[in-house]
């Protein structure tokens, strides 16, 4: 038997005296446009779902994240996958507008169509971004091989990787970002529920605080090491740079137009060790001042990073400094749009330490850009002493949707 609290009162559960369905009228007002930037109706806390690109990429980074990777179950068909993406798109479009995931009915004998925890909460700038993993395009799965995105392949083994397969990979990705953690959780929970029978969750990650700015209007937040990292991130305002570094290339299949690639890395920080490092060591590790966020060659956060500047003992920004190795200047001009979140999953029982770190998310035109930068960081970054990459995944992110249409519609056309 189950615990006493879960007793179901099988014989006493009375049927409702009345049951029925509300016959609603009117239309969902979903703002849609073909502008580069999804426009938010002012004052509503609502980010438009439809547009040339999916929301949640250059949308100014929200405070909270719930990310989930799913696998499509064996036996599911191409039609199942197409229907799932359509159902997910519809539910996501509704939830980002502050509506229940599915229309509610007044039938008390049925489980509510929406799980309910977001009822009465504003949309909190919720965005839901979908990604498709390399496995979906494998031969003999869904007949999608011919439409595989040109640059989609599992990431190669990278230096210093300590990946846990249970926290890596996946056929489908759902990135839900919002300013209210309950709103983000609600989105993932309801999509998982809708997908039951076609997909199973493979792994999931909550992020409690943004670590990136994707708009010049946003402050650079601090990561769990106490530093501002990513001051020189790509931002929504740099339209030409976004075209060069972020949005899918012209040789990609039609359904990727306006799309991009998402790389996710669960980076565990050994914060107990970090907390014992001297301030000098910490600043030399990042190449920035902790208090101001300024590069070691300046005094304010946005002062130029002068990689050539020399001090008494060599370069002011040390050879292994994170800022040097990640800089576009030392990576053939490569720029990524980073959109990461700090996480904690509570307690690491084995080590008796906090299980915390950075859930790194980057968007780029080509995942090889990430591979290139991370190969170098994995070998030389002074930060490696304090971090471990324990999860990894890559997804193709289809372009944006037209109002009422499903994501990646042309993939199945």
């Amino acid at each position, binding site marked *: 038997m189950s615990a006493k609290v879960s007793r179901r009162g*099988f014989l006493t*559960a009375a*049927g409702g005296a009345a049951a029925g369905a*509300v016959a609603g009228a009117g239309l969902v007002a979903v703002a849609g446009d073909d502008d580069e930037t999804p426009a938010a109706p002012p004052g509503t806390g609502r980010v438009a779902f439809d547009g040339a690109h999916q929301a949640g990429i250059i949308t100014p980074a929200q405070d909270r994240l719930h990310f989930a990777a799913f696998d499509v179950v064996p036996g599911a068909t191409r039609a199942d996958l197409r229907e799932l993406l359509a159902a997910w798109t519809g539910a996501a479009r509704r939830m980002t507008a502050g509506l229940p995931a599915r229309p509610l*009915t007044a039938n008390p004998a049925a489980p509510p169509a929406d799980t309910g925890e977001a009822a*009465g909460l504003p949309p909190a700038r919720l965005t839901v971004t979908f990604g498709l993993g390399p496995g979906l395009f494998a031969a003999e799965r869904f007949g999608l091989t011919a439409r595989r995105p040109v640059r989609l392949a599992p990431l190669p083994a990278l230096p210093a990787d300590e990946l846990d397969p249970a926290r890596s990979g996946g056929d489908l990705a759902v990135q839900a970002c919002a300013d209210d953690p309950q709103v983000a959780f609600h989105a993932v929970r309801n999509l998982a529920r809708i997908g039951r029978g076609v997909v199973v969750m493979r792994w999931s990650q909550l992020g409690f605080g943004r670590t990136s700015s994707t708009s010049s209007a946003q402050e650079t937040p601090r990561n769990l090491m106490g530093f501002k990292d990513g001051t020189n991130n790509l931002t929504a305002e740099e339209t030409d740079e976004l075209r060069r570094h972020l949005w899918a290339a012209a040789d990609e299949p039609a359904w990727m137009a306006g799309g991009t690639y998402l790389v996710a890395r669960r980076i565990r920080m050994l914060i107990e060790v970090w907390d014992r490092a001297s301030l000098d060591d910490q600043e030399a590790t990042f190449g920035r001042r902790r208090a101001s966020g300024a590069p070691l060659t300046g005094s304010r956060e946005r002062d130029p990073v002068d990689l050539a500047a020399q001090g008494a003992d060599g370069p002011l920004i040390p050879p292994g400094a994170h800022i040097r190795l990640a800089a576009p200047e030392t990576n053939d001009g490569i720029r990524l749009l980073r959109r990461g979140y700090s996480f904690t999953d509570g307690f690491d029982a084995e080590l008796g330490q906090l299980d915390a770190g950075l859930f790194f998310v980057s968007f780029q035109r080509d995942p090889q850009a990430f591979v290139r930068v991370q190969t170098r960081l994995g070998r030389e970054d002074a930060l490696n002493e304090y971090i471990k990459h324990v999860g990894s995944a890559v997804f193709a992110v289809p372009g944006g949707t037209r109002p009422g249409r499903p994501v990646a519609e042309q993939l199945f056309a």
Partner: protein
Amino acid sequence: MAVAGAAALTLAACGSEPDEEIAGAREVPVALTDAGCDPATLSIPAGPTTFVVRNEGTEQVRELEVLGGTRVLGEAYATSPGREGRLTLDLAPGRYTVNCPGGAETATGVLTVTGGTPARTATADADLAAATAGYTSYVEMQARELQRRVRRFATAIRAGDVPRAKELFAWSRAPFEKIEPVAESFGDLDPKIDARVNDVAEGDRWTGFHRIERGLWVDGSTEGLGRYADQLERDVDRLAERVQGLTYKPEELANGANGLLGEVSASKITGEEDRYSHTDLSDFEANVLGSQAAFGLLAPALRKRDPELAATISRRFDSVLAALEPYRRGDGFVSYDTVGEPERRRLSQQVDALAEPLSEVAGVLQR
């Protein structure tokens, strides 16, 4: 409506999906005027009813609510002059309140629903009657089988035959697991038969299957178990007596089928149920079979209302039972402590995939 007010408002204002109307509902027009509901006194026969609400005033009165007691059963909106809204309810005989908030004179009215036949098809009702009658005999049959098996189990214990008793343990409790939600409704009997050690309140005596299980597997002996065997026999006899002639409602079958899968998720997948013998997979199978039996009885009625849902559920029952097959050994299953975490997760996800559509059955049958 029977959901949170805020969500209801959002829905009525913004729902764009097709109306989930009840087929064959009778239409009852109600006008919203600045005075309130017109008419404010309604008398209609029982059964599916669609209130067609039309705004014939200004924007002073914009909605109609139907309440049973203090509970809002549903709302219909007609927010501006000339607009229409609809609300469909399956009303049982009785007195209800209708509210047209904001009305100057008749903001509150009375709806009398008189005894009548709900406009359901006669065949579907016959299907449901057959289902509930079938479940009565299914439960009686499982209870008799439980008595027979427990008798053999108890005999082995009294004979001091530890290997034989261990062999019979999972087998003897399977009929109980098949009708567990019914057994659980007898709040006094269920703990006596099936409590786990942590379910026992301080000062109460721990008896039943799991007490014996601990003796057999942890102590490796039948010493002192005879009295528990005797009592178990008496308790299952009482259970068998009490289920005689019990009648069930269709939604109880549906909720029971659902509840059995909840049992699987809550205590079998986790290995908490049979923590000494690790025979959890036998209980798992019995729960699923019991759920499948209840569903199978409802299936003819369900197929008439939602054939696709019925087909999906049947298919997923097959998948769950097929997923158990690799673990079958002889009359039982492998010891559950040999089933690793990834395999447990796969089983759990298969059960979830079945439970999700199964949870919709009760609602569909109410339509």
